């Protein structure tokens, strides 16, 4: 018998998975409902520049094979989605799924990177001030800095970052796949990641949250026991004081980061979901937006799924809940 009972985890995994799917179903319906309530005709995007008569529109609808009733539309769409077919973009006519895959990978990279940045900044501050008390000599200004960054409008921070990297370091922070390789492209991609990581408005919250958790755990009896038996306090505090809170925060912050990504991707010309979402909102390109919202929701669910998994793996019997 191992200390991580796989059976329990597997079972929980199934439960969580089912829940996630249920939620995604709900999401899909909400999205569809909103769009169905929307005024106007989603195909008008195709009529740009031409003078369409009703028969032209009918022709288009027929060509795009659109059901007429709302439930017809919903279920046909849902079925397609379940077959991995998110429909084709009204604007570009490309299958959404394919485009979405690229875009979402880029966004994933951006968000994970920036999440890492956030943690890299927040965790040390949080730990330090949990040990020294959050008013201690050094931790206070650091915490303040966290607050400041969280209060900045992220796109303005972005412009500043660009301005600095141009006039300060004389390089241009834009990633571009057709750039001749080797021009330390990672540097280019670094700036947006930093901007999102610092500016997404989560740092101060993360710091506070971690600090409180850590100091709460540090005051627990079992930590005293650990000290009394001469074991490493950190080893004992790690799971409840750091691992769990961090995973929880990461999971709960994914939505915010995805939101921030919309902005940062605009500024830094980052080919991700956020920019797609904006373009689609402009063109009322409904299949794309639906796809994006679903994908985003999927990210969020995935995040919390992983978080639950870790949580269960760490204490299978729900020792603390």
């Amino acid at each position, binding site marked *: 018998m191992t200390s991580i009972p796989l059976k329990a985890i597997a079972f929980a995994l199934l439960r969580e998975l089912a829940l996630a799917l249920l939620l995604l179903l709900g999401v899909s319906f909400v999205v569809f409902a909103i769009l169905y*309530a929307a005024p106007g005709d989603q195909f008008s995007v195709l009529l740009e520049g031409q003078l369409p008569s009703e028969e032209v529109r009918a022709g288009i609808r027929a060509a795009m094979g659109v059901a007429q009733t709302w439930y017809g539309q919903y279920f046909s769409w849902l079925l397609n989605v379940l077959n991995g077919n998110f429909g084709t973009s009204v604007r570009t006519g490309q299958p959404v799924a394919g485009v979405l895959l690229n875009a979402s990978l880029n966004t994933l990279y951006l968000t994970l990177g920036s999440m890492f940045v956030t943690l890299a900044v927040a965790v040390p501050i949080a730990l330090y001030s949990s040990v020294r008390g959050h008013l201690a000599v050094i931790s206070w200004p650091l915490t303040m800095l966290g607050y400041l960054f*969280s209060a900045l*409008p992220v796109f*303005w921070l972005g412009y500043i970052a660009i301005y600095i990297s141009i006039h300060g370091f004389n390089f241009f922070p834009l990633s571009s796949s057709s750039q001749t390789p080797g021009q330390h492209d990672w540097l280019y991609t670094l700036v947006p990641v930093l901007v999102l990581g610092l500016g997404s408005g989560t740092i101060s919250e993360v710091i*506070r949250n971690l600090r409180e958790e850590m100091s709460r755990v540090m005051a627990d009896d079992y930590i005293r026991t650990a000290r009394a038996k001469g074991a490493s306090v950190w080893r004992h505090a790690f799971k409840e004081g750091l691992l769990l809170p961090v995973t929880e925060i990461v999971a709960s912050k994914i939505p915010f980061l995805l939101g921030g990504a919309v902005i940062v991707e605009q500024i830094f010309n980052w080919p991700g979901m956020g920019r797609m979402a904006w373009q689609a909102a402009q063109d009322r390109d409904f299949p794309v*937006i639906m796809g994006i919202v679903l994908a*985003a*929701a999927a990210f969020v669910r995935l995040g919390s799924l992983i978080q639950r998994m870790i949580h269960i793996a760490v204490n299978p019997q729900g020792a603390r809940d």
Partner: protein
Amino acid sequence: MQNVKTYSQTNIEVGQFSQLPLRQKYAIADLLYVAYGLLIVALVLVSYILGMFDLLPHDPQQIHMDMLLAPPASNGYLLGTDFMGRDILSRLIMGIQAYFLPGLLAISIALTGGVVLGILAGYCDRKTETMITYFTNLVDSFPRLVLILLVIAAFKPDIYYIMVVMGITGVPAVATAIANKIRYLAHKNFIEAAVALGLRTRVIIFKHILWYNCRALLIIQATLGMGEAILLETSLSYLGFGVQEPMPSWGNMVQSGANYFLQGNFWPSTAPALAILFTILGFNLLGDGLNNILEDRRGR
């Protein structure tokens, strides 16, 4: 590193605790936070009122084609003028109008919704609770900004639509907070006790749970909510979906100003950006300060 602390006995007898000066009861920093936060809130309120009665240095809508983007302190324009030669200071003050009421709307939606669901979740049977959990999870699954983009695409870029969405997406946080609070109280047999005392459910919920035990929490949520409202409006303005010209909002001021940022004209965007910075800082600090003072003190 050295980390010397001093503890000194003031010769007061116990029971005079309440007569201690504040700074001895609470951490000075927390008090500073709250003080600063309150200052900001006061400023916001004042400028909101000023804006309401047009008590402004200049007409925020007056266009001066002859002095576009005038730098700060050029004849009478303390913070300079924007891309239409309008006085930035006046527009800053006026800008609060743009999100004040919508922000309040968002907050009140979040709070009322959150309270209702929270109480239901904390107070009712398992079934309702699971349903509510499902709902909150559902709402939490939407990245706020993306959802708003969706709504904009479907309907129109209107600050009130946006704030309604924000309010709804704000519900889960409040709900969970309240629900946890109630569970905590129940765990402490607080509720049984109240019931045993023969209090009516309504009284228990509103007086004892909400008023006595959740007001701090609600205040904190509200202050944080206002900060979020401002940031959100700003982000949307950058995307072009925020409050629209000619109505000034800090968001669209930063946005239009930022167009000249890279050419080295900083002030049009910097002034509102700093306004945003300090305001949100104020709301966040207020929230956290109150949190430390009102919430954590309990039980210590």
